[in-house]
Structures are given as C-alpha cells and as structure tokens.
C-alpha cells in the first residue's frame, strides 16, 4: 500500500478524534454523584444500585450524595457515611480487604495463571527463525 496516500485520511481521523474529545470536559458534580451512587446498593429494592434504582429512598440518597459532595466531602467519605448508616450490605461490591481480596484478585489470578501456563507449556517449543513464514488460510 502506498503509505503516503493514507496520510490525509489519518490526519482527518486525528482531527475528528480531537474534536470528539473536546465535546466532553472533566468530571463535574453530576458525574461524581453518579460515580458514588453506583458504588452503593439501594437498601429497599432487589439488586439495583442507587444510581439505577427507581425507589424514593434511592432518590433521597442521591440528593444526600450531591449535597455532601457539593460541600466538598470526598467520595470515600460519602461512601463511608452510608456504610455507617446501613452497614456493609449497602456496598455494591465488597471492599478490597480481607475476604474481599479473594474476589477482587481472582480474575487476575485466573487470567495471569492461564497466560503463564500457556507461555510455560508452549513458549519454548522451537526456536524462531526468519526463514519460516507460516501458512495462509484456506
């Protein structure tokens, strides 16, 4: 392929990406409220986060989150406030501590262990040579 021919296309893409990104700014209060709300479980409905829930209580909780964040409290502090009031079961995911680590680390162990096994089992099979170039599809 003529590499020069692609350049105008690529610069146009670059410009498009830049313009696309400019449309969104840094996280504002709405986004931070959403971030905290999706870390909390709605205590009165089944299996919905505060961000998603349609219940009255969740709406009130979102208002409290907004108020506290607007006053300058950190996201962690707001989450801690709700844990104090409703207990650990208000968290949408177990904390990264104690038994919770089992859960949080398991996927990394699975993927890392699997990849490690593949490399160990098949990685040293035969030396790589420049002369050989594989087979195409049929």
């Amino acid at each position, binding site marked *: 392929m003529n590499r020069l021919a692609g350049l105008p296309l690529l610069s146009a893409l670059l410009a498009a990406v830049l313009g696309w990104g400019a449309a969104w700014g840094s996280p504002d209060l709405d986004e931070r409220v959403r971030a905290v709300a999706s870390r909390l479980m709605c205590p009165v409905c089944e299996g919905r986060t505060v961000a998603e829930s349609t219940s009255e209580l969740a709406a009130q909780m979102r208002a409290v989150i907004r108020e506290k964040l607007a006053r300058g409290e950190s996201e962690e502090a707001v989450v801690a406030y709700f844990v104090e009031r409703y207990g650990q079961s208000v968290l*949408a995911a177990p904390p990264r501590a104690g038994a919770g680590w089992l859960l949080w680390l398991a996927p990394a162990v699975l993927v890392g262990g*699997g990849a490690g096994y593949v490399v160990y089992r*098949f990685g040293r099979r035969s030396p790589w040579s*420049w002369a050989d170039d594989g087979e195409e599809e049929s």
Partner: protein
Amino acid sequence: MSELGFYATALALVACGYAAAAAAYGARTGARRWADSGYRSLWAAAGLLTVAVAVLLHALVTHDFRVAYVVRNSSLATPLPYRISALWGAQAGSLLFWSWLLAGVGCAALRGQRREHPQLAAWANAVLATVLGFFVFLVVIEQPFRTLPFAPADGRGLMPLLEDPGMVLHPPLLYLGFVGLSVPYSFAVAALLTGKLDAGWITATRTWTVVSWLSLGAGLVVGGWWAYRTLGWGGYWGWDPVENAALVPWLVSTAYLHSAVVQERRGAFAAWNLALVVLAFSTAMLGTFLTRTGLVVSVHSFARSEIGPFFLAFVGVLLAASLGLLLWRWEDLRGSPPVDHLLSREGAFLFNNVLFLGFAGGVLLGTMYPLGVQAAGGGQVFVGPPYFQALAAPVGVALLGLMGVAVLLPWRRAGPRTLARFRFPVFFALLVAVGAGVSLRRPGVVAAAAAVAFALGATLHAFHAAGQAGVRTGRGYLHGLAEAFRGQRRRYGGYVVHLGVLVMAVGVVASHAYVREREVLLRPGQSFSVGRYVFVHRGLEQSATALADVTRARVELHEPGRVLPLQPVRLFYPRWGQVVTRPAIRSTLWDDVYLVLWSFQGDGAATLRAWVNPMVRWVWVGALVCGVGAVLTVWPQRKRRPVLLVDGALPLATARTRDGYPAKGRREAAREVLRALRGPREGRVP
C-alpha cells in the same frame, strides 16, 4: 382438553426414557435396529411435546380460565401476541417450551448426522434424550396443565413489565441458545464414549454451535434493549445475576468457537475443546438453575420456584459424569499435535481462550460470591457493577487488541512477511492513541480507543488482502472481496462479526464513560439543562386505560437549532401494584437523550430524570452487524473437493484457492492423504 396436555407430557417422559436406553444399547452393541428405535422415540417425544405446547397455547389463546396457568399469566384484556408469549412468561410454561425446543433442536441435529456419523449420533441421541427427560420430568412436577375447581371470570394477566416486544423475543432467544448448546455437548460426550476424538464431532455440530452462540448473544442484546426502553434507569446492562448467568455460557462458547477452529485445522486442542463444551453446557445449566430458583437477588424475580434441588443435582451429575469421561480418555487425548510457536494464530487463540475463560470465571465468581459469603455465615453482601466493570474493562481491551493480533498472524508461526502486516494497524492505533490521549484524557478510554483502532486496522487489512488478490488475478478489487466471501465464508463471516464487535465496543465505552445525568423537580414552565440540551416542563396529562392509570409529562427538548416534544410516561397498574415507567428517548448515532418521569405532584410539578447517553445506538447497530456475520459463517456453502497432487509418496500441494494462496500447507496435505488412505469415512458406502 388440558388432560390431553398432561398425558402428552407424561408419555413424552416415558418416550425419553426409552429413547435414552434404546439409543445407548444400540450404540454400544452396534445394533442398527435399536439405534433407529431410539431416534424414532425421540421424534415421538418431540411430537408429544408439540401436542402439549399446542394444548397450552390453545388454552391461553382461547382464555380457558379453568387452567391455573392461564389465569395467572393472561387476562381477557391481554392482546394476542402477549397471550402467546405468556407460554414462556412463567415457570411451568417456560419449562415446557424449553423442553419442546430441546426436542426439536435435538431431532434436527441428529437427522443430519445419522448417516455421516452413525455411532456418534446414536450416543448423542442417548445423551440428548437423558437431558430432555430431565426437563420433561420438571414439567411434570411443575404441572402447567393443573386445573382449578372452578373457572374464574377473568385472569390476573401478564406482568405489565413483560408486555413489550422485547420480552416476546428475549426468552425464546436465550432458551434456544441454552438448548442449542446441548447439541455440541451431546456429541462431545459421544466422542468421549466412542473414542472417536478427531474433529468429527466438531464439524458435525458446528452449525448448531454457531446458531446457539448467536441466539444466546441475540437474547442478551434484546434483553438489554428491553431493559433500556422499559426499566427507566438509563442503562442497558446492569450486571444483574441473571444477566451474568446467560453471559457466562456465552463467553465460554465464544472461547470454544475459536479453539474449535484450531482443532479442525491443525488437529490440536482435542481435550481442551471437549472440556470447553462440557463447561459451556454446564454453565448454561447452572445459569438456568440460578434464573429458575431465585437463589440470587435479581430483577428477574418473576421466575422462581422450588425445583432448585433437582437442578443442582442434575448439574452436579452432568459435570461429574463429563469430567469422569474426560479423565477416562485422558491418555488418548494427550497425543494431539502441539502448537509450534506462540507467535501464530494458534497461539493467539490460546490467549483468546485464557481471556474469555478468565472473564467468564470472574463473572461467575462475582455472581456466586454472595451465596458463598452467606453460606459461610456472613451477612448479605452484593457484588455489583463496580466489580464487574473493573473486570470487564481490562479484559475487554485485551480481547480487542488480541482480535487484531490474531487476524494478522498466520497459522503455525509468524515470519518477517507477516510481521510486516502489523505496520499499518500499529501506526493507526498509535495515531488514535495520541489523538485520544490529547483530547479524552482518560487512560481507560484511550487504551480502548487504541485497541479498537488496532483491531479495525488489522481486520480491514484482511479484507484489503482479499481485494488485492482479486486485483492480482485481474478481476478487480470487489471481485476479490466477493470471492473471499464465497470461498472462505467462515473466515470472512467471522471478520464481519469482529467488525460488529468493534462497533459495539465504541458504543459501550462511550456510553459508559461519558454518560451524563441529572434529576430535577420542575413546576410547569420551568426548565433545566444537561450538557447542550435544555428541557422545558410544559405540564402533565392524566388518563386511564382498562388496566393502568397513565400520567404523561409534556416536555420540550431544546437542541441547538430545533425543538422536539418528549413525552415520558408513568403507568400505575393497580391490579399488580406495579409502576412502569416508559422513558422518552430521542436517539441518534451521536447520542441518546433519555428522559424519565420519576414522580409527580397534584399541582403539575414533576420530578424528571434525564440522561445523555453517547453512542448507545452503536451497540444495537454493532450487534446487528455481528448477527449478519454469524449467519454468513453458517450459510450453506457448496462443497469444494480438495484436489490432491501426489508425486510418488509425497503429496506436493493441494489445490490452490481462488485468491492464490495454497489451500493447505504440506503438513496438512500429508495428513489429508493419510486420512484418505486410511479408508472411507465410517458409515459411508465407498
């Protein structure tokens, strides 16, 4: 009338038991008559289940309120399409429907393979009949045909949330996906039992694997589409346990679809593929178990019952028996040809399997973790979106990148010519990464953008190569592309699926990373804004239908340059005490404006919640592209007979395909010859 349904299911159970026994005996002794008798009784079971389904459908359509199921799941006011979909709207009916699908799929799958692979098909028949028998047993326990001592004047009706076109489609698609996985599973077990461990069982079930993968995926997407349009929380995927339960088998079968290609082409991964199919089917059954028993807290709580212990026992027996068989054949499976080098397509497929299974394992673990904590005496805990997103984001980005790598790498091992192909996609990805890094400023999004760009470049390179091959033969670029689709439909159909996945990935990343939302209490005439959109509340309208009180908010959406009316609706169904919100959605390729009427007061004031979801439409469009690609891969293709050129004892090469590449390498060709010399395929008249 409903007695007929009961007797039909009871007889179907007997037919399944006989089919399993006769087919197993026939397969073991090689007695054709017994094997044929097994097929016929599976057909009989399918016919009986068809009668049972017809009876229940008839009762639903004609409002036969003597049947308890009809009373619970329909009413005089339920429109016809939803009376039909009520068949799978609740537990007992959906089990019956499921069994009927399984019987139909089983008969269709066996029909094609009876002559080609007689012994495999006979054993597969025994396995299918056993699985079917279990489900028919559950139907008998659940009694969909139970009658009431008196017939009430009207039924309770279908849950209002379920009266939606999405809900008509979503369950049958998922069921077909789950049921379809039983075909590769039964043939895999047959392969283990007979010791015919070559790729025969894979080719025999390839179409059904793709069909069930496709309908499982389509079921997931339609479910998301339904949630997006009806549940009113602005999203389409909530990492709900039941969603996860369907996602896990889909992920495992995606891994299998890829590694099966390696066995068909290079003979490697024989044991691994068998294990994957067992895993896919077991997770599908586990998913059904989770859905059907309400063991985990979920929004899908309308489908619960007490059949849990049976299910758990069944899944346990399945897993134990299948793993036992695998271990029994382990010595035979060890000899499969190795992977030459990791820097090859086989190598990429290995990593693909690691990532997909890691993903599936993580999702499964997150779904089961609350059960584990409760069993260990801990309190109630949830594992929700924060965990699953932290899992899906890095694995997803790695998979997207790997998608590009795998497309570019050749079989066996890569050399300088193939590595040179990486130039354009890598350059493109770097460019996009720089652009995204400057403007988007979120590391995750930048990584995803670069991965998508790389995979896109690699996939387009594959199409470009096909086009160029057409130019080389002098017939033109488009002709080359058309030839690629004609001659290598599976490969290029797969690439179309990849393109669809890339489109979906853009939509998923954009709609998760840049969603904006706000909720406001407004009096008529007041307004609020989200991003560049301004919403003006113009007042409420109240009305009532036969079943629901309807409140409609009239809102004007002011976009730069135009004004659109939006009318989010809130329906209250007194009979169920259920509130249904119907969001008003203004959807374009660029973003969705999603407005929900949250609550209202007597004076016309309303709490409105508005989302601006970027690029959600890309998810649906990408899913459609995936569907087209998947259909392409299994579209019937006229058979090409490989031409073997044999020089003395050494095969030189097989026929060249139309794009000018050798059809297969020498090693493959040699294997082809040996296979041909070893004799005709079993069961076929030479």
